[in-house]
C-alpha cells in the first residue's frame, strides 16, 4: 500500500488527524535542512511536504519566498532536493514525502526524468501549484502512471462545477487552501473552512487536509476538528528565519527550534 494511504488509514483507525509539515528543501543550507527533515517524524509530522525552491513563487507569501531564496543562495537545486529524499529514506521507510513547488524547475529537468527519479528516490506525491487540471496530460497523468500521487489544491474560489475537474486525477489527499490569498498571511475562518471541507468530502473519498494560515496549537486543534489533516508551513519557515545569525547562517538552535515548534503545534492532534 502507498505510504500516504497507509498513514491516513492508520490515523483514521485511531480517530486521529494528520499533522502535515512544510519545509523548503535546502533552507537555510543543505545539511541543516536534512537534519530538520530527519527529525520531523519524531517531532510529530505524519506527512512531510518538502518545498522545491523556486525563484518566483507567485502563490506564496514573503516567508516562503525568502525560504526559497535562502535555499537557492545556499546552492540548492532539484538534484540536491531529490538526493535529500534519498538520504531521508535510508532511515525512514514509512513517513510520506510530498514534493511541493512550481512547474518550471520540473519542466526543464525535464518532466520524464523528474518523475522517474522522484519515484525512485522515495517520493510519494507531488503538489505543483501552477499546473491546473487543464494541463493534466503533461505532468499529472505521467506522475500517476509512475505511482506518484498528485495532490491538488482546492480553494474558496473553487465552485461546485470546477470542483469536479479539480478532483479528477487527484490522489493521496486533497489540500484545501483555507483562504483566498498567499501562504502565511491571514488566519482562516473556521466556519467557512468546515463548510468547504464538507463540500469537498461530499464529492470524494480522499482525506482533506487544510492549510494556509495555521500558526497556533489552538488553530491546529480547531482545523483538525473539521478536517482530516492540518498543514503548517509558514510558522516553521519563520522559525528557521528567526534562528539564523546576522549573516543568515544556521545556528545550533535552528533545527531544534523548528522541531520544538512542530512538537508544540502537533500536540493537540496527538492527544485525541
Amino acid at each position, binding site marked *: 500500500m502507498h505510504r500516504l494511504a497507509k498513514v491516513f488509514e492508520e490515523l483514521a483507525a485511531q480517530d486521529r488527524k494528520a499533522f502535515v509539515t512544510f519545509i523548503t528543501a535546502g533552507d537555510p543550507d543543505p545539511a541543516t535542512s536534512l537534519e530538520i527533515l530527519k527529525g520531523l517524524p519524531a517531532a510529530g509530522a505524519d506527512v512531510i511536504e518538502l518545498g522545491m525552491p523556486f525563484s518566483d513563487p507567485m502563490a506564496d507569501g514573503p516567508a516562503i519566498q525568502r525560504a526559497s531564496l535562502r535555499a537557492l543562495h545556499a546552492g540548492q537545486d532539484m538534484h540536491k532536493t531529490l538526493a535529500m529524499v534519498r538520504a531521508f529514506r535510508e532511515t525512514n521507510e514509512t513517513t510520506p514525502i510530498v514534493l511541493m513547488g512550481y512547474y518550471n*524547475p520540473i519542466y*526543464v529537468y525535464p518532466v520524464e526524468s523528474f518523475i522517474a527519479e522522484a519515484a525512485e528516490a522515495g517520493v510519494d506525491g507531488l503538489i505543483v*501549484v501552477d499546473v491546473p487540471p487543464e494541463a493534466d496530460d503533461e505532468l499529472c497523468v505521467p506522475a500517476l502512471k509512475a505511482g506518484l500521487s498528485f495532490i491538488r489544491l482546492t480553494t474558496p474560489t473553487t*465552485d461546485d462545477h470546477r470542483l469536479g475537474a479539480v478532483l479528477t486525477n487527484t490522489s493521496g489527499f486533497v489540500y484545501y*487552501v483555507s483562504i*483566498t490569498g498567499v501562504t502565511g498571511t491571514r488566519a482562516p475562518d473556521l466556519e467557512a473552512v468546515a463548510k468547504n471541507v464538507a463540500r469537498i468530502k461530499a464529492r470524494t473519498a480522499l482525506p482533506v487536509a487544510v492549510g494556509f494560515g495555521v500558526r497556533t496549537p489552538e488553530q491546529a486543534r480547531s482545523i483538525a476538528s473539521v478536517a482530516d489533516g492540518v498543514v503548517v508551513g509558514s510558522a516553521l519557515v519563520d522559525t528557521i528565519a528567526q534562528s539564523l545569525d546576522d549573516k543568515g547562517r544556521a545556528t545550533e538552535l535552528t533545527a531544534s527550534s523548528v522541531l520544538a515548534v512542530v512538537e508544540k503545534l502537533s500536540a493537540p492532534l496527538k492527544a485525541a
Partner: protein
Amino acid sequence: MDPIAETPLHLNSYRTGPDDSGHFGLYGGRFVAETLMPLILELEAAYEAAKVDPSFHAELADLNAHYAGRPSPLYFAERLTQHLGGAKVYFKREELNHTGSHKVNNCLGQILLAKRMGKKRIIAETGAGQHGVATATVAARFGLPCVIYMGATDIERQKPNVFRMRLLGAEVRPVISGTGTLKDAMNEALRDWVSNVEDTFYIIGTVAGPHPYPAMVRDFQAVIGQETREQMLAAEGRLPDTLVAAIGGGSNAMGIFHPFLDDASVKMFGVEAGGKGLDVPNGHCASLNGGRPGVLHGNRTYLLQDGDGQILEGHSISAGLDYPGIGPEHSWLRDTGRVTYVSATDREALDAFQLCTRIEGIIPALEPAHALAYVTKLAPTLPPDNLLVMNMSGRGDKDIFAVAAHLGMDI
C-alpha cells in the same frame, strides 16, 4: 528538445491563434494557481462577450479618438532616411498618444472590460512606469481606486513616472522581493489578485500572462498595425515592406505585427534588449535569443533561466525591456520563422536615442531606441524603395535622467 525551426513553416494563416485552451503551438496556456483559475475563466467569458458587442467597440473607438488622440500619425522620417541612405523610414508615432506611449491602447480596452464586469478596484504591474502611468490614468478617468506594483530598483530609475502615477491618484507599492524589477512586480500583483479575488481587476500591461491576456492585449494593441496599414496605403499606395519594433514583453511589437502576419511580403523584426551583450551571462534581456522555453507568470514561453529552471533577472538599460520572459505568441512566431528576432545593446540604444533626438527632433523612449538601433543597421542594406516602419512606442522624457547618468552628464 530543440524548438528552433530551421525552415519556416508555411501556414495558411498566422492569425488564428490561440486555440481554445489558450495555446499558440507549444506556448501560452493557463499555468496559474487554482485560486485564480475561476477568475481567469470569468475574464475569458467576459472578453469573448465584449468582443462581439458593437457597443463595447464603439465606446473604445470613441475613447481612442477623443481621449487617447488616435489615430497616431505615420511619419516619414526624411532626415533619418537621408542619414542612413537606404530604406524609406517611417515612424508610427505611438509616443504622441495620451500618456506618452502605446500602453494606453490596452489600458482603455481593459478598463472598459473591468467596468462591464462590475469590478471596483484596479491593480497593475509596471517596469518603466509607462504601463503604470497609463493604468493610473484610465483608473482616474473611470473613478476606480488603483494600486501599481513597481520594483524598488525601477522606482529609483523612473522617478518622473512614479510621481506622475501618484499625481493621478494611484498608490505605488514598491516591491523589494527578488531584485525589485518587473518580474517581481508581476509576482506581487498576482499575489494581490489571489488575495482580493472578489472585486479586483488586474490590468496586465503586455501580451503575456495566462490566457486570455496574451490574445486580449494583442487585440487592443492591434489598432497600431491596423492604422499603419491604412496610413501606408494612403501615403504610398501599397503595404510596407519592413516592420521593426522593440520587444520586452512584446505588446507594441505584437500590436504592429499582427495585422500584417498573413501578408507574406512584409518582413518583420523584433528587437530584444541586448544589454551588455548576448555573450555576457545574465547581462541581457533577450529571452528569444538567449533563453529557452519554460513556464512563468501563467504561460509557457521563452525565459531567461539557469540550468535548474530558476528565473534570471537579466539586464537592460531600459526598465521597460527588463523582463525575463516574452509573450507566448512571439515564442511561436519565432519558432515558425515568421518574425525575425534580433537584439540591440545598451550602447547601441543610447547612440540611437541621441541620433533620433538630434536629427529628427524626437526624443524616443529607451525601449524604441533599441528598435531604432536595429533600423540604423538594417536600413542601409535595403533599397530606397523599401518602405520600413518602426514603431515609436514611447517618448523619452522619462528617460532623460537615466540617459544623462549613462552619458556622464549632471542635470
